[in-house]
């Protein structure tokens, strides 16, 4: 930074004396000394077009700090000239001091003003922030309340899911044990039936026929077969139930959504009315990182709605597709569809069209929460050809 504009700059004669004042000063000095007096600048040139002194004139320097800022020149004794020069210097010095002090003062004031302005700006910014905060408080509170509601529902659902899972795990364990010995007992029973059949020749034919043992043997085998089929079915249901609640997998994991949906449909198949058909149209999907139990819950809620829509008879089609890194699952029913005025509200919490006790109005809400938590999207619509389609989009 140059000192050129600071309070501490060097003053030249021109900074301290106006041309008009110079003429007056020279006249006053001339009156004091009785001879014409010239004022010269630092280079010795007559100041402000003043008269040039004679070459023989004496010179007295005007020194403010170390070096002359100018000279007085006159044809007179040097000591008399020096005295007048001291007088003039005193005046010049006073002006220089005044300039320095006022410039310094200005510089300080300007710096303070800049500082104040900066503080003012900062205050304004913070005021604006608070204003905005106050204006948005309502919206923010609503947003936060909604978020809390959502979290609560998720928590509620998660807890419910966890207790279902525990129950399922307990039931599965309890049922698996008797299933085990029923299975082995059945195997033994089949062997025993073979041995009983071998008694045919030993037993009197009359008695045999009287007890209709031919039929008994045959039917016994049939009964055992049916029983074994029943046991296997129970085992499968237990397995599906475990898979559905994902009690074994409480953490996020990579799953094949098709297999997941298969297990879910196996559970649902047992509950659906006979007049309803569930059709599937699966295509290979990329593995999906998810909470399988939660997603099952979401798809179950959607499926249940679809099944209810076709209660009297109809078809529910579950379709899976992959497009790049995105998985699409659509669940379509050919039921009566959803009235246009109801459609926008189906995801609202506690909104239900069913009678008291029949539905909580939380099924689809929770389904949407879960899908959003998986960074996915869910959309519901009623195409022109009838029915309802729920489309779920999940990033793999």
């Amino acid at each position: 930074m140059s000192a050129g504009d600071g309070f501490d700059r060097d003053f030249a004669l021109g900074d301290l004396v106006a041309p008009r004042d110079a003429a007056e000063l020279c006249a006053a000095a001339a009156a004091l000394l009785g001879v014409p007096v010239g004022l010269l600048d630092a280079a010795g040139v007559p100041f402000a077009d003043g008269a040039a002194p004679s070459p023989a004139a004496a010179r007295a320097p005007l020194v403010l700090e170390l070096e002359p800022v100018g000279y007085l020149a006159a044809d007179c004794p040097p000591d008399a000239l020096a005295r007048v020069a001291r007088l003039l210097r005193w005046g010049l010095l006073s002006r220089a001091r005044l300039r320095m002090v006022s410039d310094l003062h200005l510089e300080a004031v300007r710096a303070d003003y800049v500082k104040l302005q900066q503080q003012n700006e900062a205050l304004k910014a913070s005021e604006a922030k608070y204003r905005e905060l106050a204006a948005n408080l309502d919206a923010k509170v609503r947003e936060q309340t909604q978020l809390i509601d959502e979290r609560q529902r998720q928590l509620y659902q998660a807890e419910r899911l966890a207790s279902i899972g525990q129950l399922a795990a307990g039931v599965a364990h309890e049922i698996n044990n008797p299933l085990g010995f029923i299975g082995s007992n059945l195997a033994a029973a089949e062997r025993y039936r073979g041995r009983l059949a071998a008694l045919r020749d030993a037993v009197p034919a009359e008695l045999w026929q009287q007890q209709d043992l031919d039929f008994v043997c045959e039917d016994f085998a049939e009964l055992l077969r049916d029983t074994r089929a029943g046991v296997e079915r129970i085992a499968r249901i237990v397995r599906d139930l475990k898979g559905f609640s994902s009690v074994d997998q409480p953490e996020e994991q990579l799953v094949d959504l098709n297999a997941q949906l298969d297990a879910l449909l196996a559970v649902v198949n047992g509950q659906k009315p006979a007049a309803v058909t569930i059709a599937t149209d699966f295509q290979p999907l990329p593995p999906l990182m998810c909470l399988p139990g939660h997603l099952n819950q979401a798809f179950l809620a959607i499926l249940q709605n679809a099944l209810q829509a076709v209660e009297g008879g109809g078809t529910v089609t579950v379709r899976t597709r992959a497009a790049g890194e995105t998985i699409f699952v659509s669940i379509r029913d050919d039921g009566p569809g959803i009235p246009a005025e109801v459609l926008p509200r189906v995801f609202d919490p506690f909104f239900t069209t069913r009678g008291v006790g029949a539905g909580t109005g939380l099924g689809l809400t929770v389904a949407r929460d879960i899908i959003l938590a998986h960074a996915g999207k869910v959309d519901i619509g009623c195409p022109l050809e009838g029915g309802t389609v729920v489309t779920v989009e999940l990033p793999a």
Partner: protein
Amino acid sequence: MPEFERDAGRLTFKLVYYGPAQGGKTTNLMQLHELAGAQMKGELMTLETQNDRTLFFDLLPLGFRTAAGLTIRFRLFTVPGQVAHDGTRKAVLSRADGVVFVADSQRSQATNNGEAFQNLAENLGRVGLEIERLPLVVQFNKRDLPDILGEDEVRARYSGAPWPLLFAAAIDGRGVRETFAALLRAVWRRYADEFDLAGAHGLDEATFVAAAGGGAP
């Protein structure tokens, strides 16, 4: 950055005496005006004061002319020490080429010293000067008073600081010229190469310090 006027053959250093209120900055300049053996010595210009306190600044011009014809000037300023005059202090400090920090040795003034030094560091930053690169010496003044910090104590406190540490009793001139000499040496080391003072102007550090008034008269 020293101001170099090639046409006028003049190099001007601005040196600032900084420190807490009533620490003896003006007294330093008054004594230096008496003691400095500088080739050129101007009058001490004292601007407005109020009850012995500097309101604006004091200015002492010193200088010398080198054999090669260069005029080297030093303009020594003091700042007002009171907290309230921070704007003025900052304006005086701007464009400084070297600083003497005049601390008050009295035990009761330790906090004021600390705050004033903190203020110096902050203001240097505000006027765009780097404390790491600026020639700076620290003077502990008022060694003549009772109840002052011992020299060992002061040295221990400043042992981690890179700046020369001097002790003075400016009221009777003790340590004043030595402090100025220490600052001149720091100034020489910082700027001599930049202005080729040794090569083009035939100077060396001792000559520079002595001619500027830092040597014995």
